[in-house]
């Protein structure tokens, strides 16, 4: 014989009927969580309800109800697998969760794949464009620097050829191309040295060179620090190994335009 806590006895009956609510329900639920006797009484009160339900016995359902049910069941056949609600197997849930995760992952990867494809196409276009630009630049540079290229300097008629130099300087990159013509032959163990004369500070070495038999010479991209503002360029005659600063008077000088 179990003992029901009297203070909850009436509310247990109301709970069984499904009409208890609010604070009373919360209090009872809390008590039921720790009281097996009252849980047992709740189940018995539901049994009493079942007895009351049986008092309604008498009417029978129409015969069509059976066929209706069987038709519905035939439309929802089940595989012969026992299912337990109380102890639901965890692996089907896990399998569905894994399948759902794979689906989400697939969608994400498909999206990522599309992004990567687009990125590859963009990079290919950039690479093609850069290759074309590089090819053009190389061709221009090759024409300037080729030993067999013909260099012609046009001057006023009836004027003897004079030494000329042309410096093309791109400050932001520190790039420099220098072309010279009609240079005089050098003494032994000497070389021409090109100087970048900054707006502030001492001349900066910008390449050592010797002219060919026709007096032509080229200096391409000597090691210069980007960003140096050039006031002028100059050429001096220096020892073959070059000098850190000019040791002679410039034989050619040109300021920026």
């Amino acid at each position, binding site marked *: 014989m179990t003992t029901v806590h009297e203070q909850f006895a009436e509310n247990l009956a109301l709970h069984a009927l499904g009409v208890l609510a609010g604070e009373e329900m919360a209090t009872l639920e809390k008590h039921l969580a720790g009281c097996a006797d009252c849980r047992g009484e709740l189940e018995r009160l539901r049994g009493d309800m079942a007895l*009351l339900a049986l008092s309604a016995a008498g009417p029978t359902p129409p015969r069509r109800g059976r066929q*209706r049910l069987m038709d519905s069941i035939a439309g929802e056949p089940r*595989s012969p697998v026992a299912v337990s*609600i109380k102890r639901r197997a965890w692996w089907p849930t896990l399998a569905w969760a894994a399948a759902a995760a794979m689906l989400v992952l697939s969608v994400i990867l498909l999206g990522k794949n599309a992004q990567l494809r687009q990125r590859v196409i963009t990079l290919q276009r950039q690479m093609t464009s850069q290759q074309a630009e590089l090819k053009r630049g190389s061709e221009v540079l090759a024409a300037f620097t080729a030993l067999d290229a013909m260099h012609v300097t046009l001057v006023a008629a009836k004027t003897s050829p004079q030494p000329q130099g042309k410096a093309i300087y791109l400050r932001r990159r520190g790039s420099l191309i220098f072309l010279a013509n009609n240079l005089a032959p050098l003494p032994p163990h000497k070389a021409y040295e090109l100087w970048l004369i900054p707006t502030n500070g001492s001349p900066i070495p910008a390449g050592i060179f010797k002219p060919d038999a026709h007096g032509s010479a080229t200096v391409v991209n000597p090691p210069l620090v980007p960003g140096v503002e050039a006031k002028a360029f100059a050429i001096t005659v220096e020892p073959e190994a070059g000098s850190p600063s000019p040791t002679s008077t410039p034989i050619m000088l040109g300021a920026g335009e």
Partner: protein
Amino acid sequence: MSAADPKGVSTDGAMMAAIRAGDQNAMALLYDRYSSIVYAVALRVLGDTGAAEDTLQEIFMQLWRNPALFDSSRGNLPAWLSVVTRNRSIDSLRKRRPETNIEEVIVSVEPDLASDTDRARALGKIRGALGDMPVAQRAVLEMAFFQGLTHTEIASKTGEPLGTIKTRIRAGLLALRKSLK
């Protein structure tokens, strides 16, 4: 082996096991055995044959779809069906979403109501107990059970104190239990 034993000797447990295995014949047998209980309770609550038929179909289809709703180790099937049907019918009557979680309803009743003989014997005693009950108490019990009225609504309707209504509901249920001892 099918649970639809022509001799009618299959137990409720065997029927439910067969239903869990997808045996449609077992479902037909279950319907033949308990549809009248489900229908009668639904009709008493809803007062409409069409609505009662729909509830009947719904209850059995739920059991077909998920036989584990009923745990045969923790109750008896006709009693469980009666209570579940009453609760679902009240939800329908009061136009509210199904609030009762069917699988959580555990019904404990002493007599075995599986056979027609057992149920007939129990029904006689139950009706006797209801007949012996004071009219006011029986009215309160039936308002709470078949109409789904809350104790507050019953108190308001009858003019009786709330405490009296609570007491009568519990006492009425215990009287039914005692009648079968």
